[in-house]
Every structure is written in C-alpha cells, then in structure tokens.
C-alpha cells in the first residue's frame, strides 16, 4: 500500500543526523561537567541509527517522487525571516534530483559509519568523530533538501565546516591542521562568488526561492548579462566545493583526515555539493550559453589536469584524490554539455566505487601502517578480499563493461560527442589517464612482493576485520550492479521529468562504437600500466627521465600550491598589502594621533600640577569642551 511521504517525515531525513550530533555534543558537555560516565560506543550506535532512519525515509521519499505527477512532491515553505522586502523561507524541495541525492548521501554515509566503527575503534576522539560525522551527513542532506538559496547556503557552509573539522580531526598533526585551514579558505574563496551571485539575483528578482528564480529566468524576467554573472558566481562556489580547477588545491591535502572521512568527502558529501548545486540550478545554466561554456571548459580542463597529476603521486590516497577531482570534472563537463541526467548518473555511480576505493585504501593502511605505495606491494596475497573489492571499484572507475562506471561514463561521452566535440576528446583522453593511474595503483599496491610497510609491527600484513569488510562488500556489489538502474532510462526520466520546462536538457544516445572505444581506451591504459608496473618492461624511472620536464611540473602540481600559498597568501596579502597597512596604521595614523595626544598630555600634566588628581582633570576637560563648543557656535553664528 503506497502512501506519499508527509512533510514531517521528509524533514526527519535531515533532522535525524543533526539530532544525533546534538545529543552526542550535549552528552560530552555533561561528561565534562562530571555528569554521567563516558560511553563512546553509544555515539557510534546513535549515529548509525540516525543515518539508517535517514536512509529508510530517503527511500520512501524517492518512491514518492517516482509515483508523483511531475516527479515532484511539493511542501509549503515556512517563514524564517521577513523584513520587507526581504522574505526568506525554509522549505523542503523534493523532486527527482533531490530524492536521488538524499538516497545516495544517506546510503554511502551509512556504509562509511559502519566501517568507521572498526577503523576508529581505538581513537581517543571516538565520540567527537561520530558527532562530526552526524553533523556532516545532516548538513549535506539539508543542503540537498533546501528550497531556498539562502537556506542552501547555510547548509553549504556547514558542510564546509564539517570538512574543516574532520580534515583537521587529528589536530596535533601539523599537516592536518594546515590542510583543514586550507580546505576552508579555498572553498570560501569560491563562496565569495556564490554569495555575490545570491546578492545579485536577489536585487534583480527580489526572490531567493529556487523555484521562483527558475521561473523568473524561464519567463525571461532576468537579463542575459545578469544570468551569466549569476551562473558564473554560483559556479565559482561550486568549483570551490567540487574542487574544480583552479580551486582544486585543497582536496589532495584533505586526505589528512581519517580515511573514512575521505571516503565520505569524495563520494557523497562536500565535493558532490558543487555538482549538485549546478544541477539544482540547471535551468538557469541551460539559458546562458556563456555560463554553460565556462562550466564545460573548466570541467574538461579539470578532468585532464587531475588525471595527469594522478600519475605521479606516490601516496595511494592522493592518487584517489586526484581521481576524484578528475571525475568531478567529468560531471561538470557533462553539465556544461547540457547533460543533466548523465552528470547526475555519474555522480551516483561514482559515489559508490569511490567510497569503496577509499575504504580499500583505509583497509590497506590498516594492514601496512602507511599510505605510501612504494612501501606496499604484493598485498593481494595477504588481503584477498580487500584486493578483490578494490579491483572491482578500480575497473568500475575506469569504465569497464558491465560495471557501474561504464554506463555513466558512456552517457557522458555520448552527450559530449553530440553537443561539444572537444569535450568528448578531452574526456576520452581522461579515460586513458584514469586507466593508467588506476592500473599503476593496483600494480604497485597489490602485485609483486611486499616492501615492508610503514615501520614496526607491519611486517606481516593481515586482512581487515569483518566490520570493515562487510560495508566494503555492500559497496562492491553496488559498484557492479548500480549502473543498471538507468538501463530503462528510469533515472533520466526522474531527473528530466522534474525540470520546470521541457527541452532544457539533452538526452544521450547510446552508440556501440562509442562504448567500444571508451572500453578499448580503458583497457589500453590498464595494459600500459601493466607493462610498466606489472611486467616492468620499461622501468618507471626511465620514463620519468625521458619526460622529466613534464614530470617535474606534475610533481610540483603545476605550481598551484606555490602560487596560492607563496605568492598570493604570503607574498601579496601578508607581506604586501596587510604589512603596508600595518606599518601605516602604527606609524602613520596612530603616530599622528599620538603626536596630538602627546601635546594634550603635556597640557594635562600642567593642569594636574595645579589641581592634582585625575577626576579634576576630567572635570576641567569637560568645562574646556563646553567653552570650546560655545565659542565655535558663536563664531559660526554670531
């Protein structure tokens, strides 16, 4: 018996994890006051329970959307703030796009939380970890559900906050604290654009409600220049969150957090937010050719650039980080080519296999005590399940038939072929790069002989416990099968069906030759990796020495970090402008004032000599002031 989801249940999707965060925080506070005993495992169970509830309700919401007319369920918004003419309401926007995202976020988060119980078991910050994870999930769900741009921005920033707190979770580590600050600041740089865009659209339309803005754009009430600026500003914010060039620099460093956090950040929360935001406002992009082209260019550049960088990293998580950046570039390029459904479909499949890859990397780290692939090798023998799951995820990422990534990547390539041929070639090059770096990762980690791991106690690597393997198995099964959900175009109809107007998004057409060529290129890439890192026909060092200028540039990450930290932050802002102002403030403005102050103090001392005592000085000063003022008045108006 089908029943449409009521509003209270929909809100519970968001509120359950937020409630779990609040309860864990209050319990910690009570403990610090000496009330109650410390029971960390309860925080994990609470988090898992809350997110399970979110998942179940999300599936109900998804089902309701599938059944509903126009693939959307509408709820009345609630007034939050109103000062005429400003009206901000909060509402729950439930349509195809948000329903799919809710389910993905809750699902991936749930598996990550279960896994975390094992991974974080002995960490002293256990409760804090689950509190932040609850808040992270809740904030992301809130972002997805938001019906109003300001409401979305609130959760958007909360997602950023949680990534800050979780990247810097091990706050004693120097690298972690730097990475956390960097992540927050770089994404906030992008938010500058988002907030400006929000102000612009409010001035132009007097609306912050997403539906109302889309309607205004579709009826032509917004000028094309404004629309382009708005879409560009929003995209700056999205590029920050989704680590698009040139704001991608925070994501590779973000692996300083616990590995399950990376899994969550890279799969379902945080980086997905940017792609989601562009998709959420897709009708506005579809109306602005300039904005659309920007998105396509940035997406394509990011896809190729990050793929190249993935080739030279020695840290397994950094390879995966650049892989995420590259795949997010695919999604953006897809959106920029009017492919709403393929981009979201790829976001959907990518969530599962990328989460799995990170959980695999965490499992490997659990066994070897390192993330450095140069110290791994031969792990397939010691950790057969981890190996199997990682291979499945890697091949899904490369896009090998019939795994999940094949279906979504193929749709992206197809739409690029139809809409923007140059995007197609960039993405196809990206497929080769993806295959190459994933092949390299697999061979370095799992093939050959074990190279000792990271220090004491890791001489004999072992398979991870069941609590970590079970969620990995679930994600592996999804990585295999989840690509089939769109076989009947079900997801596409859900997404396109909930757009406000027909004909905004383009539908991809499946072509055998396209599918064959992408799989071929993928196999070729893995093959090359096999030759170099498996069979060692050519040694990697030799290749490096032949292409040394490229390798040098790649290893310095295109000098992007040097540019931001060295030149802009340290050089221009701190040593330049702020330093000059500081000097001016102390020596110029304050110096002048102190000069006057000096004179006054001399006078004051004279007065004190006569009257002795500071209260009297004050009284005299007041009297003097009144006299001066009276004189001024008399002078001006005799």
């Amino acid at each position, binding site marked *: 018996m089908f029943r449409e989801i009521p509003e209270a249940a929909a809100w519970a999707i968001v509120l359950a994890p937020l409630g779990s965060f609040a309860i864990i925080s209050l319990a910690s506070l009570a403990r610090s*006051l000496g009330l109650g005993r410390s029971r960390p495992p309860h925080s994990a169970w609470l988090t898992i329970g809350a997110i399970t509830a979110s998942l179940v309700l999300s599936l109900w919401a998804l089902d309701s959307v599938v059944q509903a007319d126009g693939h959307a369920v509408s709820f009345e918004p609630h*007034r939050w*703030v*109103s*000062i*005429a*003419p*400003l009206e901000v309401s909060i509402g729950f926007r439930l349509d195809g796009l948000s329903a799919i995202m809710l389910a993905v976020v809750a699902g991936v988060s749930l598996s990550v939380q279960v896994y975390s119980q094992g991974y974080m078991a002995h960490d002293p910050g256990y409760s804090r970890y689950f509190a932040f994870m609850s808040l992270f999930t809740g904030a992301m769900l809130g972002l997805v559900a938001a019906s109003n741009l*300001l409401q979305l*921005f*609130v959760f958007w*920033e*909360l997602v950023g*906050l949680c990534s*800050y707190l979780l990247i810097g979770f091990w*706050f*004693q580590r120097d690298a*972690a*604290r*730097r990475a*956390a*600050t960097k992540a*927050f*600041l770089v994404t*906030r740089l992008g*938010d*500058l654009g988002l*907030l*400006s865009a929000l*102000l*612009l659209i*409010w*001035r132009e339309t007097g609306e912050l409600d997403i539906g109302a803005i889309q309607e205004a754009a579709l009826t032509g009430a917004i000028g094309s220049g404004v629309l382009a600026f708005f879409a560009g500003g929003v995209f700056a914010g999205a590029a920050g969150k989704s680590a698009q060039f040139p704001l991608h620099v925070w994501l590779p460093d973000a692996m300083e957090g616990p590995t399950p956090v990376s899994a969550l950040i890279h799969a379902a929360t945080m980086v997905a937010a940017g792609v989601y935001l562009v998709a959420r406002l897709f009708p506005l992009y579809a109306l602005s050719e300039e904005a659309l082209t920007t998105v396509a260019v940035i997406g394509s550049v990011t896809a190729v650039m990050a793929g190249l960088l993935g080739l030279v990293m020695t840290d397994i998580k950094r390879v995966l980080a650049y892989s995420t950046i590259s795949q997010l570039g695919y999604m953006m390029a897809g959106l920029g080519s009017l492919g709403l459904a393929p981009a979201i479909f790829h976001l959907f499949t990518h969530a599962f296999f990328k989460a799995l890859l990170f959980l695999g990397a965490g499992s490997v780290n659990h066994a070897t005590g390192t993330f450095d692939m140069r110290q791994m090798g031969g792990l397939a023998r010691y950790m057969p399940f981890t190996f199997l799951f990682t291979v499945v995820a890697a091949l899904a990422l490369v896009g090998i038939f019939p795994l999940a990534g094949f279906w979504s990547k193929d749709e992206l390539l197809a739409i690029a072929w139809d809409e923007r041929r140059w995007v197609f070639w960039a993405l196809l090059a990206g497929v080769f790069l993806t295959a190459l770096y994933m092949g390299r990762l697999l061979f370095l980690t799992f093939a050959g002989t074990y190279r000792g791991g990271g220090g004491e106690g890791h001489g004999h690597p072992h398979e991870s416990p069941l609590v970590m393997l079970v969620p990995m198995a679930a994600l592996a099964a999804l990585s295999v099968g989840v690509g089939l959900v769109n076989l009947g175009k079900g997801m596409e109809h859900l997404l396109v069906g909930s757009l406000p107007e027909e004909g905004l998004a383009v539908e991809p057409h499946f072509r055998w030759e396209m599918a064959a060529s992408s799989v071929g290129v993928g196999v070729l890439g893995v093959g090359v990796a096999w030759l170099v890192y498996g069979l060692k026909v050519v040694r990697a060092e030799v290749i490096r020495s032949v292409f040394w200028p490229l390798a040098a540039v790649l290893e310095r990450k295109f000098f992007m970090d040097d540019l931001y930290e060295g030149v802009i932050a340290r050089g221009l*802002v*701190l040593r330049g*402008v*702020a330093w000059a*102002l*500081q000097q001016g*403030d102390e020596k110029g403005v*304050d110096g002048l*004032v*102190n000069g006057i*102050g000096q004179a*006054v*103090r001399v006078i*004051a001392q004279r007065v004190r000599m006569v009257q002795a005592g*500071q*209260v009297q000085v*004050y009284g005299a*000063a*007041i009297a003097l*002031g*009144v006299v*001066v*003022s009276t004189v*001024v*008045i008399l002078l*001006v*108006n005799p």
Partner: protein
Amino acid sequence: MLSLLVFLPLAGTALVAVLPRRWEGRARWIALGASLGCLGIALALFAAYDRGGPQFQFVDRHVWLSSDVAPFSVQYALGVDGLSLPLLVLTAFLTVVAVLISWEIGPRPKEYFAWLLVLESSLLGVFSSLDLVLFFLFFELELLPMYFLISIWGTGRRIYSAWKYVFFTFFGSAFMLVGILALGLEAGTFDIRALQEMGPIRQAVLPAPAIFAFLIIGFGIKLPVVPLHTWLPDAHTDAPTAVSVMLAGVLLKMGGYGILRLCISLLPEVARDASLWLGAFAGATILYGALATLMQRDLKRLIAYSSVSHMGYVLLGASALGTVGLVGASMQMFTHGLITGLLFVMVGLVYERTHTRDIGELGGLAARLPYLTVVMVFAGLASLGLPSLAGFVSEATVFLGTFPRHQALAVMGVLGVLLAAAYILWMVQRVFWGEAAPRWQSLQEKVAWWERVPTLALMTVILLVGVYPSPLMDLFEGGIIPIVERLT
C-alpha cells in the same frame, strides 16, 4: 520601570561603596545581584514591549530645566523602542558576564565592582535617553569608570591606553556636543521625539551637513571608523578582560546607535546625500580592519582589530538607508556584542592559564585545554560568519540590504568575510591545533563555575539568534521602520 533599570546599578555602586573594608569580598555578590536584577528587568521589558503599540514605550518623563526666558527646555526623559530595547538587553546581559568573569579580579575588588556598575548605568542611560542633553550626559559619564577600570586594573601600557581612550572620546564628544546644541537650540527642545516629529532640519545655527558631520565624527570615533580607530586596539589590549568585553560588546554600539538614532533619523536628507561617503568609509573600515587583523601577533590585539572590521558592517548596513540594511546594521551591533564579547572572555581565560598572549609562543593548546578550545573555536566560527550562528544572520542581512544601493561596497564586505575566515582560522591553527610546546604540557584545565556559566550562556544565545533570529529581527524592524519612513 526604565528609571529603576538605569539606576539600579548605581544603587549597587552605593551599596558597594558603603561596604566595610572587611566585607570587601562580598562586593562581587552585590554586583552580581544588581546586574542580574537589571537583566531581569530588561528581559521583562523585552517581553512586555507591545510590538503593535506606539514607537516609544515605558516612557518616564519629567521637565528638568525650563524657564520662560530660555529658548529651550531640557527634560529627564527615558523610553525605549525596537531599536534601543535589544541593546538594553545586550548591555544587561554582558554586564552579568563581565561581573562573573571578574569574579577573582585581584586588588581592590570593591572599587572595581563599583566602577563596573557605574559603567552599566551610563550605558543603559545612553540607550534609553529620549532627550539629547541627557543622552550626552550618559554618553560622557561612561568615560569616568572606563578611565579608572583601564588605568588601575589594566595591563601593559595601561595609563597610556586609558588616556588615549579618554582623549579620543573627549575629542569626539566636543564635536558631538556642538552638533547636539545646534540641533536643540534650533528646535527649542532637546526631546528626541519632538525633534523626530518636526520634520527635517535644513538650516539651524549651523548648516545641516555640518551638524551631521560633527555628530558623525563623535560617533565615528566610538564605532570606530577608520581612520579614527587607533585608540581601540590599545584600549582593548590593555584593559582587563571584563572591560574589553564591555568595550567591544556595548560601548562601540553607542557609536552605531548614535548614527542610527541621531544622524540618520534626525537629519535624513543629509544622510541621503552622504550615503555613498558613509558606505565608502564602511568599506574601508571593513577591509582595513581585516587586513590589519591578519598581521597581529597578540591574541587580544587580533580580536580588537577584528572588531574594527566587524563594526564596519554596522556602518555599511546603515549607509544603505533601507529597512533591510538598517535592520542588518542593528542586528550586527547585537550579534557582534555577543560574539566579540565571548572572544574577549576566551582570550582572558586563555591568558590566565598561559600568562602570554603572543600567538607565536602559544600552540597546541587543544590537547591541554579542551573546553576552552571548543568555546574559542565556536566563537571564532561565529565571528567568521558561519551560518547557523548569530554573526551570519546580521552580516547576510547587511549584504542583502546594501547590495541594491552600493553594489561594489557590498562585495567588499563579502571580501571582508573571506579575510575574517583567514585570520580566525590561522589564529586557531597556530594557537590551538598542533603539538603542544613543552612549556604547555603541564597545563591543567580547571574551569570554575564563574567561567563556565557566562561562556555557556553566550554560546547558547549566539546559537539561538543564529537559528531563529526573527523575534529579535522583528523587534529591530519595528524600531527601524519609523526611521526609514523619514528617509523617504
């Protein structure tokens, strides 16, 4: 009722003053009682204020100076509207915080608490005066306790800083007094309500723009506006913790309140012409303050400079001269009082344990001082405008209000938010995260009740206002609408 509120702290002062020396330790209980009483009355007024009623309520009015020969009259008149009532609540609340945080102030507690209560009376008087002369008297009365509090219980170059503060304020007050006298003499009354109803003043003993400029100089020093801000870092840094809290939390708001209540409300035509100038100074204050903050090595100085930047938002919102901007400016006064108050409290608590404020010497405190770290990070996040906390609500409102009128300046304000994130997070990174240096390894965190209560209370209010701001915003809106009506 309002008179009771304003003079209750002075009664406390009197009681403390007659306290025998051997009961000196009980002065703090008297101070706490008086400040809690004020908070209770202020909250009662907040609850009892009729939002649909007349603009000024709870009016106490008596003729004070009036004669047939003088062309003007002065009255003792107190009353509150939607603009001043929240500021009264803020003052009463932060005074309780200040009393608690000074619980173990050290030398001469009797005099200390006596002056603190005088300070509260003067502040409450400023926000509830309906007569310009009375307003000015309260405005000046505040200098006396501030001078003694900084110069006796301060640190560092406290005498210098106290004098600098007095000098700057006095300098501004001279201008302000001229402006007030010019207004009052022209109108024949110093009654703010009467002045409001008179319609715009174009030509008094001085031209209206000159009056406006005089008033702006007076209030601009208090707010402060760059380049009149240099007293602030010194006064804050050398003042005792509780006085920094009052200074940042409430005293700066006298400037903002004056601009809204006198400059914009009484001289709307000049304000319209000066809108761009006000905005430009606001933008300069925001960016200049934020950039200067980036360079600070002293924890307290850093918060002080960030205060300069944040007060720029008040002027920015005011410069837009629309309902949204003005409500944003008032909200910013309120939220900045809470947030920066909390930041100064925390700096004081950290200093008491480490005896240094040098950011370079501190580091890795999170492992040793977990509670203080949590609160400080919370306050920092509120200060950098994290949504769901109070600062975001007011800043976003200021931006939304300003953008339609001064597009570029609003974007400068948004840039200030980015810089705020930079200086706050770098500070947190250097002071709290990382490995603790050997000298901090033995730090023990014991948080006394009088430290815990005010921090928890401030955090709760910051969160409440951030999540559900409309009760407060609606009240402010009620106070702002009459001002905006005069502008159009």
